């Protein structure tokens, strides 16, 4: 047999065993420190509680709420449809599948926004896109959405509109009574009949 064939065969064997022996190289996708800094300093990652409330109310299918507090806190109170991924197990095998789903917008939240921000940095370094932080966390959620403060009488129209939205959202999330005039759902229909007239009505 030609010697060159044997050399080629050995070369292939060496290359293949090389592949086999190489350690798994993971996370080469993680972003560079420069890129991370650029994303950290700008505030585009923050969503306000109002934006989050609106997304929940509208049933936005791309919204993935992630509660990064511990399990106890999560079961005590959390946002509707939120999943619980404690900060210390964000890299665990069981939870990793929640991130990096195509077209999903992951929103981290905790009591304030420190833990959520930390979770965001970890997720960012892992190269995930479409990740956000709920600004102010659940404390801000309670203050703005659950117990909204009515604005001063001299406040702008926008502030009043925001207050109206928050009041509505509060009712949505707490199941509070709507203070609308009570009715049994049926309204009397008043029929207005045109008066008969013999005069031909004006056409053009």
């Amino acid at each position, binding site marked *: *047999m*030609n010697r*060159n*064939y044997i050399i080629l*065969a050995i070369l*292939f*064997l060496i*290359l*293949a*065993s*090389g*592949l*086999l022996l*190489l350690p798994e*190289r993971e996370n*080469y*996708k993680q972003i560079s420190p420069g890129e991370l800094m650029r994303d950290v300093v700008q505030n585009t990652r923050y969503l306000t509680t109002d934006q989050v409330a609106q997304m929940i109310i509208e049933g936005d299918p791309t919204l993935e709420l992630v509660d990064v507090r511990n399990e106890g806190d999560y079961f005590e109170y959390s946002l509707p449809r939120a999943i619980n991924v404690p900060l210390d197990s964000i890299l665990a095998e069981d939870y990793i599948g929640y991130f990096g789903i195509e077209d999903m917008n992951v929103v981290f939240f905790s009591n304030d926004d420190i833990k959520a921000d930390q979770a965001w940095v970890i997720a960012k370094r892992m190269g995930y896109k479409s990740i956000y932080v709920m600004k102010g966390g659940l404390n801000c959620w309670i203050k703005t959405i659950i117990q909204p403060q009515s604005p001063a009488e001299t406040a702008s129209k926008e502030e009043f509109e925001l207050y109206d939205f928050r009041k509505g959202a509060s009712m949505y999330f707490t199941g509070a009574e709507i203070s609308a005039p009570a009715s049994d759902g049926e309204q009397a229909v008043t029929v207005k009949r045109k008066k008969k007239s013999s005069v031909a009505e004006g056409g053009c």
Partner: protein
Amino acid sequence: MGPLIPQGLIAGGWDFVIALLLGVAFGFILEASGFSSSRNIAGVFYGYNFVVLRVFFTAVLVCMVGLGYFEYMGWINMDLIYVLPTFPKPMILGAIIMGIGFVTAGFCPGTSYTAMAIGKIDAFVFTGGLFLGIFIFSETFPLFESFYYEGNMGSLTIGEFFGISNQLFTFIFIIIALVAYYVTWMIEKRVRKTVNPFKF
């Protein structure tokens, strides 16, 4: 970094140009390997010429090992590579039909074009039959449609199917290929009596 077109590093419009260049290279290699001769190709079935097996096995090996190292270096994202979905039953039937065509005509679709390029009359006849077959298949497609899409297993790789890593599968595959090279060489020697190994 890669793949270049899905990542947008090369604009999508270039894919036809790249396909043309790759097609020319592929045709050149087919012709250079002697695949424009239907005797060489049909030889696999009679045991006197295994060049088809060797060339394609080698191409697959180079590709597997190369992609393995590219992935390790982070030059290519294997998740973005298109993997043809697997339909076991229709694929087995298709392979049998293809094999019958192979052994009777001595061409596969690609090699029939290389043979046409050097003016082989049997290749022209084969290609005519190929288009006739495509036409008949397309017109009668609704009849087989349910079988055609039967048993979709999704984009499955052999490594995933057996639950082993792609690197391990590459290694096993190389062993299989090297054994196949040796065995086919022995068969060829016995059947052909005179074998002139290609000098390079």
